[in-house]
């Protein structure tokens, strides 16, 4: 991690955004969007996670690429597990 010190304003802004997004995701759950409820919930969750990873965990300010490679690799293999497993389950009754 670099010795770049994130400005206080940035941290507070991210914090407030996270709280707002939490409220939004809870509120949107009461609105009927059909199958898109799940999509919206996951998109919001991903935005929140990105904010935490990039700012709070400093990945945006990391001086070298290696940390970003580690994060992306972990996500890639997770999606592999989820995706290829679901490939079986969603095609079983076809």
């Amino acid at each position, binding site marked *: 991690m670099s010795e770049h010190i994130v400005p206080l304003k940035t941290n507070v802004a991210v914090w407030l955004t996270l709280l707002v997004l939490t409220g939004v995701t809870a509120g949107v759950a009461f609105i009927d969007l059909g199958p898109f409820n799940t999509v919206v919930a996951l998109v919001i969750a991903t935005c929140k996670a990105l904010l935490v990873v990039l700012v709070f965990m400093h990945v945006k300010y990391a001086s070298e690429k*290696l940390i970003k490679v580690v994060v992306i*690799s*972990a996500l890639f*293999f997770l999606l*592999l*597990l989820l995706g*290829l*497993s679901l*490939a*079986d*389950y969603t*095609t*079983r009754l*076809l």
Partner: protein
Amino acid sequence: MATAVIAPERENYLNQEYGIKSWLLTVDHKRIALLYLVSITFFFFIGGFFALLIRLELLTPAGDLVQADTYNKLFTMHGQVMVFFFLIPSIPAVLGNFLVPLMIGARDLAFPRINLLSWYLYIIAGILMLHCMLTGGVDTGWTFYTPFSTAFSNTKVIEAGLAIFISGFSSILTGLNFVVTIHRMRAPGMTWNRLPLFIWAHYATSIIQLLGTPVIAVTLVLVVLERALHLGIFDPTRGGDPLLFQHLFWFYSHPAVYIMILPSMGVVTEIVPCFSRKRIFGYNFVAMSSIAIAVFGFLVWAHHMFVAGISLYSALIFSALSYLVAVPSAIKVFNWTATMYKGSIRFSTPMLYAFGFIGLFTMGGLTGLFLAALGIDVHVTDTYFVIAHFHYIMVGGAVMGYLGGMHFWWPKISGRMYPESLGRFSALIVFLGFNLTFFPQFILGYLGMPRRYWQYPPEFQVLNVLSTAGSTILAVGYLLPMVYFLWSMRYGKLAPANPWGASGLEWTTTSPPPTFNFEHTPVVDWEAYDYENIPAPEEARVAG
């Protein structure tokens, strides 16, 4: 010369400190490697003992040595011990721990105390496993398939599951240590392209250990919870899906086989150039193929489930991906062969093991392609064909690589030479014993003999007898090195720093190395496998 040491011994990592505390509380990666060596050899004996009992039972068609339930325990515990307590740690924990810092010019691994913790986790897991075996054992097969393991088996599934869970963390920590070490602790001038390919192989192995092992860890947690609380996550009578367990289990256990083979490939890649006096052919290809094996290895797991009930479409995808994963392995075989072409070959013991590896791994790999073909798999799955396939890779491949590596680096580790003619003789015994044990099993499987059965139709007896005969020869082949390695520690010829004339930083320091590995931090300005500029051992040999 076979005399014991008369002259005062230079201080090295072995004699720097004496006493059991200095070993059990060591943070020296070389000592930890030896702690692992002793432990995994112990478990190899245990796994081998179960194997011999299996082969004894299978001498006759009738189930007359043990009861069926006992036989289930034998093959289960043979598999669990060999996979989790021998093969997965073997090369990384022994040779990797010893050599990774030396090969990159570092003083130790990045996290020496975590390295020791890794060994202690392995020991705790091992003790738990031993206790489990001694108090009734497990009979689910090493694969723990549900719902038998979660709802019906009357054996110590929870204990075995917990033991493997703990051993998994040992594996994860070793992998973590290697990745950080290789990224952060290379000596000046040791760029990625100058790294020994042994290091690339261990880097790739470590990636698999890091990303795959947690999945089986959490799966075992779920199995233990299901068994203890009667949940239903994997039980079809309670709304669960047994295939979910298999997906989660094989997501790790297929890449696990690459954990078992990649380090051996790394060993072979060090041995072949040395005993061909030639630089490795296609360095970049070998390095990249190691990474490719690690990544592609995660894409193929459901080929273990072709007949289990997965959808036809996903079976097609996994079959195609399984063909793909063979390509980087094949590339390596071509590279090793091309290295030997027009080389100056010496048939020393490590090279004999390397030859054995290349031939037997190729056979095992090709038969894997048979299994990847859906149609053939329907015929041979769950038969001795599969057993022969994976033993060709794990025994003919991985264990041969391990033995070759042990012989190659024994002078560095112990400061002594093992007796060369005995070494060659044992390699031959291993090769012959191995083929006699496992080749008949290809035929048996193709003819229809199922795996995990304790009795079989009489027409299969001849092949089974051949296989059992082979296993006793193989056992002799394995015992001999243990005996002469121990013998050599007291009576073996003193080893010079570089008895083989090999390339690599580990050969520039003394045999055995001092605790801090190097007198001065090496500065590297030469390429790897620089065999044009390294004198052959005849010129370099030091008397006594």
